[in-house]
């Protein structure tokens, strides 16, 4: 009964999208505001409806309702309650429901804003949202139904259906299959929701770009509305990606955080185009122009979100992230094609009217550098796209299966990322409209030698001999210095202006120019993240060795001694092997690592939990690869020294802080005007 009620809510939500779409179209055709208002109300109603459906689903998961097919496919009795809740997004139909809920939530929140000045956009934004929501809800209502129950007939045949078929009895399995062991991790709480939020939110720039193209209002208004929403979505996507990296680092057991798996790459692509959009949106806001570029990026970002969703959910490519094979591949392909071709057709149609008001001159100026950096971001995006689709192209054209693995991505993208790190450092030095290089001689005289200290320190104390890593370290150091210099410069200026008020000087610029300093903080965060990435990509050391109890292995300046092994059965029927490695540096103990291996007998799968000792300069990371039964007490370990990895997580924190600073609302009345020049 409750399952039928849950199904009823999402079916009603779907019907509302159909009604809303018709109402909005009719409103546009008749130029009738009441119809458009009615469509708007319909959209606002969809979110509470799906919320009810979602609560029903969560109740089924927590209540161990194994007669519901989805529940029995992702839940088992031994799972802790928090994992049962996260199982909502652990399978295809449940995660689609969750996706729809977030999409409807984002749309409702956006539609809730005041539209008086921009009413012309509203019907088209509504139409885009209804089409999108309608499509994804239809998948949940017709193809991937999370509320389907298991039934069996007297002759033994089984059936999945929301409602009881005539003559059938409910089938209640005693236990479910349970969540894939890889997903039984606290990372499951945060990574998928953050990533989903970071995907669905791009419907806002997309719908506004479509609205601006259809209505012919190509001024910067649509972008002004879209920009804060894009920034919020972008930061969720960044957090989603980094949380995924952390999860991989903690569980997957290859000492890394990013495997260039097709689904990872597909999630990175909208991040790249959104990053480009945020930069040129800023240019358009300041200087006008870049209309074609921004409109194209607004459309592209959401198309890439749909492409990523298609890759993950259709089963067209194999990946650790993919859902089980499903019927939704073909409809998703048609929908993706429709959206792509529609967007393309619309922008081509409007291309002449998106005329350029302003184009910067080709010289050393901030706008040219931003454009150049955009070009690099889009090149990385195209490289990623090529890497994802090439295996399909190769199989279609030459009937040869190929693997495009991390080695290729690193070879091609490494220099491009490094180039962007360079641009990120140089950009604050260049002024708007152009700066003569010789005018920067003072800064360069200070920055040049200072920035060389970091690679020098890496050479002398870190024993780094990898030229590429040294260059990257130098660039990261220089970029960081430029950003810090930019921050402190204004502080010095204000402090000189009002001597003795150092604290005020520190706070005032952040209050008065939130966006600018927020932006600098975001860039500082990216630089710090790059430091972490350089550490793990360029400076990682590793060894694999089989040790008997009491034996040790030396890697770099550390000695790892295997000091203990324990094997036991957990309450949730895992076979757990815990090992102890004591780490020494110059014969003084540094800490203890506890690499662990959990074997799930029912599923025949083992999951590694690395041992980790972490500080700002390096991570000591050990994985238990294998162990011999008690007679020999021998175990095989893979040991890594990952320099600077912590900066990847710290940088993400700084980046988030920067976005919060940039988005912090202006203080009402007084604050904004208090420091205004008289």
């Amino acid at each position, binding site marked *: 009964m409750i399952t039928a009620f849950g199904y009823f809510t999402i079916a009603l939500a779907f019907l509302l999208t159909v009604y809303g779409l018709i109402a909005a179209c009719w409103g546009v055709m008749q130029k009738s505001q009441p119809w458009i208002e009615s469509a708007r109300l319909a959209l606002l109603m969809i979110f509470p409806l799906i919320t009810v459906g979602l609560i029903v689903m969560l109740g089924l998961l927590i209540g161990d309702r194994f007669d519901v097919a989805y529940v029995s496919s992702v839940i088992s009795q031994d799972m802790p309650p928090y994992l049962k809740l996260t199982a909502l997004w652990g399978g295809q139909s449940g995660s689609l429901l969750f996706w729809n809920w977030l999409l409807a939530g984002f749309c409702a929140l956006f539609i809730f804003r005041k539209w008086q000045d921009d009413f012309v956009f509203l019907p088209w934004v509504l139409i885009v949202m209804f089409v999108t929501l309608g499509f994804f809800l239809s998948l949940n209502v017709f193809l991937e139904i999370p509320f389907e129950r298991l039934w069996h007939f007297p002759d033994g045949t089984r059936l999945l259906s929301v409602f009881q078929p005539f003559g059938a009895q409910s089938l209640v399995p005693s236990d479910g299959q349970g969540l894939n062991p890889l997903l039984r991790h606290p990372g499951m709480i945060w990574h998928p929701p953050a990533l989903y939020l970071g995907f669905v939110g791009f419907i806002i720039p997309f719908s506004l770009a479509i609205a601006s193209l259809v209505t012919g209002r190509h001024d910067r208004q649509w972008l002004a509305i879209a920009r804060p929403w894009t920034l919020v979505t972008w930061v969720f996507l960044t957090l989603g990606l980094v949380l995924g990296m952390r999860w991989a680092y903690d569980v997957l057991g290859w000492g890394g955080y990013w495997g260039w798996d097709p689904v990872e790459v597909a999630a990175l692509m909208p991040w790249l185009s959104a990053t480009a959009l945020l930069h040129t949106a800023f240019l358009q806001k300041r200087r006008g122009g870049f209309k074609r570029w921004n409109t194209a990026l607004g459309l592209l970002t959401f198309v890439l979100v749909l492409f990523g969703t298609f890759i993950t959910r259709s089963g067209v490519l194999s990946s650790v992230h993919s859902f089980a094979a499903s019927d939704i591949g073909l409809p998703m392909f048609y929908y993706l094609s429709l959206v792509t071709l529609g967007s393309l057709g619309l922008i081509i149609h409007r291309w002449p009217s998106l005329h350029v008001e302003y184009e910067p001159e080709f010289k050393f100026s901030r706008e040219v550098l931003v454009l150049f950096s955009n070009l690099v971001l889009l090149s990385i995006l195209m490289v990623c796209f090529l890497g994802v689709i090439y295996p399909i192209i190769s199989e279609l054209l030459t009937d040869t299966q*190929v693997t495009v693995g991390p080695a290729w991505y690193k070879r091609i993208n490494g220099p491009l990322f490094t180039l962007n790190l360079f641009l990120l450092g140089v950009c604050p030095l260049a002024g*708007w409209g152009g700066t003569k290089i010789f005018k920067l001689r003072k800064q360069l005289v200070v920055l040049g030698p200072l920035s060389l200290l970091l690679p020098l320190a890496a050479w002398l104390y870190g024993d780094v001999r990898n030229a590429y890593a040294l260059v990257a370290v130098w660039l990261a150091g220089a970029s960081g210095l430029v950003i810090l210099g930019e921050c402190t410069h204004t502080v010095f200026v204000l402090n000189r202006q009002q001597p003795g008020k150092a604290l005020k000087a520190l706070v005032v610029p952040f209050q008065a120019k939130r966006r600018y300093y927020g932006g600098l903080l975001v860039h500082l965060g990216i630089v710090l993240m790059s430091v972490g990435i350089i550490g793990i990509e360029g400076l990682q050391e590793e060894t694999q060795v089989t040790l008997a109890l009491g034996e040790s292995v030396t890697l770099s300046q550390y000695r790892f001694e295997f000091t203990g092994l324990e094997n036991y059965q957990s309450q949730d029927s895992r076979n757990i092997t815990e090992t102890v490695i004591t780490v020494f540096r110059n014969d003084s103990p540094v800490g203890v690592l506890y690499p662990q291996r959990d074997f799930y007998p029912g599923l025949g799968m083992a999951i590694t939990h690395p041992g980790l000792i972490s500080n700002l300069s390096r991570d000591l990371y050990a994985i238990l690869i294998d162990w011999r039964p008690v007679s020999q007490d021998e175990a095989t370990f893979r040991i890594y020294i990952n320099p600077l990895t912590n900066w990847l997580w710290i940088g993400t924190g700084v980046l988030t802080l920067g976005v919060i600073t940039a988005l912090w609302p202006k203080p009402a009345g007084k604050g904004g005007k208090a420091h205004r020049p008289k």
Partner: protein
Amino acid sequence: MFLNLLKLRSRQFILLMIVGMCIFLPNEIVMAQALMPSDDEVNHIARQLYCPVCENISLDVCSLDACQQWRDLIRQQLADGRTEQEIKSYFVAQYGDRVLGEPPRRGLNWLLYLLPPVIILTGLGVMYAKLHRPTLAQPAHPDKRTILSEDPYLEKVAFDLENVKQHGNEKA
């Protein structure tokens, strides 16, 4: 004469043989072990290979039994004195190009290596062609005040900086 010697001293000879075996056999084993490639050597090659079953997990970190057998095969081939290239070629011959983590540079695969530089060079070219114009519709140095006036904060900072310059000059 020699045989006689052997006959005469057969007991001693057998004893000598046993002692010799005791001394040299463990050495033989130790030498074989020393020749056996280390896990690191095996992983160096395994990292570049992907088994056809696993989903985008390189061979050095895959925990499946099949992958363990592949790693043992690499170890055996390394012990037999095969080079890295020979071992990779062996796997390609057995299972096709898909076992390689990076597609080999031949045929259509050249797309993967040539397209990225072409993309960025074309982008640079287009950007240069669009922005590098002998005559500009706009002034080359747009009036900073008109730009700054769009942003009240920047306006304030410009004002502050102007102030500082003046103060500085006065002090000087």
